[in-house]
């Protein structure tokens, strides 16, 4: 097993002044491209039983007994694949997001929108033998952030993935089909290729919708290689 070097033109440049945080945080030297060694080809192996019964249900995993989170109920599902299109089983996926009003539950955040007492915004799951995963949540809201005078993050879910090799380590963001805010966002705008941005947009999937319960969005993730999902740090 090995990995070809990343296509650094598919990924955004490390510095893009429209996304101000990159100004002093983006390395100026090009990454040193080397073939991976045993240290990068190996990676943590997680036991399936580390995933608790409610971990993949953000609608309920922080809610009081008998309560559920507020917001549009959705199912997010997809397949994790490697660079050759093969499914990646037993990949650990961790997700986090703002609530339906665009508010995160963490101590350094103070957006006007209120916390939902029944929503923590964190979940995790593991891919099955076919590389497929699914979690239930509520659709997050957009929120303003300090960058330009009037910048808003499109509704998004942060997605962290451990494949089988530490070289495949990924954190990315999931956006929602049809959201006009995607194309106004300076973080999304660091990605120069429209096709690359589209790998981050989950598609409405009526076939997987549960009638009278939750709509579904499909989001496939590709680890390393020419087809890979854009890697990025969290905003």
């Amino acid at each position, binding site marked *: 097993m090995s990995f070809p070097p*990343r296509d*650094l033109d598919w*990924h*955004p*440049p*490390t510095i*893009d002044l429209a*996304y*101000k*945080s*990159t*100004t*002093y*945080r*983006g*390395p100026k*030297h090009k*990454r*040193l*491209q*080397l*073939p*991976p*060694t*045993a*240290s*990068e080809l*190996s*990676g*943590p*192996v997680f036991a399936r039983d*580390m995933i*608790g019964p409610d971990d993949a249900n953000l609608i309920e*995993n*922080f809610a009081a007994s008998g309560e559920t989170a507020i917001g549009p109920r959705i199912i997010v599902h997809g397949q994790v694949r490697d660079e050759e299109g093969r499914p990646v089983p037993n990949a650990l996926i*961790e*997700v*986090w*997001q703002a609530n339906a009003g665009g508010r*995160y*539950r963490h*101590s*350094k955040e103070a957006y006007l929108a209120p916390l939902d007492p029944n929503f*923590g*915004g*964190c*979940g995790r799951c593991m891919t099955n033998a076919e590389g497929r995963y699914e979690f239930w949540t509520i659709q997050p809201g957009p929120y303003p952030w300090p960058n330009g005078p009037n910048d808003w993050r499109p509704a998004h879910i*942060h997605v*962290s993935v451990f494949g089988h090799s*530490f*070289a495949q380590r*990924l*954190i990315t963001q999931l956006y929602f089909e049809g959201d006009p805010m995607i194309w106004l966002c300076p973080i999304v705008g*660091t990605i120069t290729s429209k096709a690359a941005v589209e790998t981050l947009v989950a598609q409405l999937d009526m076939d997987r919708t549960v009638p009278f319960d939750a709509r579904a969005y499909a989001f496939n993730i590709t680890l390393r290689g020419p087809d890979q999902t*854009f*890697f*990025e*740090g*969290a*905003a």
Partner: protein
Amino acid sequence: MHIGCTPNVDGMAMYGGDLGAVMKTGPVQGHDIIVTGTVFDGQGEALKDAMVEIWQADAHGVYPGQTGADPHFTGLGRSAGDMGTGAFRFETVKPGSVGGQAPHITFWIVARGINLGLHTRMYFPEDDLGGDPVMAAVPEARRATLIAARTDSGYQFDIHLQGPQETVFLDI
């Protein structure tokens, strides 16, 4: 902040504890060390929102999950950094050498403003790095950015995103 990776750090009790918070789940063979460090931006400011992950072999140079690995060593560390200073800290063991490489710890760094997670690695100042194939590929003037400094309890490994001491990052 990567709240979903370290919810317990911010007071959200989930999963029975954060992944990567504990690297030793029982008695572990080898020499205990503490690895600390800070991620600095191009203005010399410490990042307080970085998440740093490490992955390493056990004291005998075997990766967890592989045959013969120390059963009480996870190899994976994850730190959201100190809420006040941003400094990361890992309680681990010194890894053995792996496949002709000098002992090292693999690092992965993400933060706001880092568009593509950064891979690098930390070597130990007391080791002979002469035969290490990755170090050999690094321009000599920049090799020192991958070598930790000794402390009383272990090692200090600061990461510089920019500037004259910019750390060598790897696409590996």
